């Protein structure tokens, strides 16, 4: 009798644990999971109404920053190929415009015209001598600032922005290509480097082979590139700017990694192309979300 009691207890305990497991199993089955992953497609409206255009001209870009990549040629080529497959607009095949030279030519003409005007003013007899100095000062301040021949940074590229405000010039280009939507802008692709202390995790094993992870601060140098494009959308009918947007992306690698500039350029452009496309056409962005009970 006394020998049977512990056995009975053991059976009882086993039965109880089985029952608990069964009940919890039933609860899980009955309640089901509390979250569900679900694929979604978010439609994003185009930022620009391009219904008035059938054709698009990727004209060219004022580019600089690095000699390793011809950012003007590469950007035109990339955007044209993207628009051919992902937009309903017909892409015009034309020579890539050398906008740096065009802007400098326009600047020279503007400067010469201003000089001539200033010369005429100083040669002509002045009706009022009291305000002649202020007239000269106004003429000097309105003279366009010289455009740097070599673009190294943002400061160099900034004065080139005047080119996109020249509606007469873009209207002329528009007429030449039967009034398309014109895409132009600036592209700055520059080398970049940074250094500082970062946290690094180090794996260690003791005598018994147990793994531990320790954190230590180490000095690290990184190099890479920064890409700063500004896309300008111009109405070929009027030469006026319809819309423009600027972006900035950078990539950094450990110092010992030798990544070619061109592959970094494409890596950075890959990140920006969806933004560029979303200006011209509606897009559906695929993703996954979690639904909760």
């Amino acid at each position: 009798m006394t020998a049977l009691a512990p056995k009975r207890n053991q059976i009882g305990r086993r039965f109880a644990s089985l029952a608990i497991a069964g009940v919890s199993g039933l609860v899980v089955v009955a309640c089901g999971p509390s979250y569900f992953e679900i694929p979604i497609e978010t439609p994003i409206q185009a930022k620009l109404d391009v219904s008035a255009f059938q054709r698009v001209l990727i004209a060219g870009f004022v580019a600089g920053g690095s000699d390793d990549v011809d950012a003007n040629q590469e950007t035109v080529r990339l955007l044209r190929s993207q628009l051919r497959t992902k937009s309903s607009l017909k892409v015009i095949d034309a020579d890539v415009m050398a906008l740096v030279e065009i802007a400098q030519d326009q600047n020279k003409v503007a400067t010469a015209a201003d000089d001539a005007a200033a010369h005429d003013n100083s040669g002509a007899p002045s009706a009022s001598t009291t305000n002649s100095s202020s007239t000269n000062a106004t003429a000097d301040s309105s003279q366009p600032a010289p455009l740097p021949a070599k673009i190294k940074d943002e400061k160099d590229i900034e004065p080139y922005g005047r080119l996109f405000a020249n509606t007469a010039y873009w209207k002329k280009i528009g007429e030449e290509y039967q009034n398309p939507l014109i895409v132009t802008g600036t592209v700055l692709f520059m080398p970049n480097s940074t250094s500082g202390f970062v946290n690094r995790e180090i794996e260690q094993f003791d005598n018994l082979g147990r793994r531990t992870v320790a954190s230590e601060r180490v000095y690290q140098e990184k190099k890479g590139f920064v890409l700063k494009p500004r896309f300008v959308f111009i109405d070929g009918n009027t030469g006026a700017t319809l819309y423009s947007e600027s972006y900035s992306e950078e990539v950094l690698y450990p110092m010992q990694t030798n990544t070619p500039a061109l592959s970094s350029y494409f890596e950075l452009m890959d990140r920006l192309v969806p933004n560029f496309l979303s200006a011209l056409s509606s897009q559906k962005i695929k993703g996954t979300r979690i639904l909760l009970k």
Partner: protein
Amino acid sequence: MNLPFVACVALLAAGSAMPAYADARDDAKSQVDFGINVAQRGLWREAIYRWEKAVELDPKYAEAYNDLAVAYEHEGQLDKARGAYDKALALEPNNAQIRQNYDLFKEINDRAGAKEKSDRP
């Protein structure tokens, strides 16, 4: 008035309120379940209807707001999605799954919202 009496009254009042709250949550829960079911079949508008009902029944149901936000996102109603995520996170600020959904949404919303931030002439 003695303290035990007040405590008893308070407990009774709370007890009688509980079933009403539980009923609202149960009703809302069944709407949420149905919404998930139809969303999985691609019937997002029906899902929105269900989840809107759920938050109407139980305005403190963070999960329902989360689901509603996801559905609005899928339908491209980004302003409404942001509002629903905001409410879900206000109710459950530490819910990692809602936070994850919101972070992904923000990425898309920022891209779409670049229009407002652009240097339009």
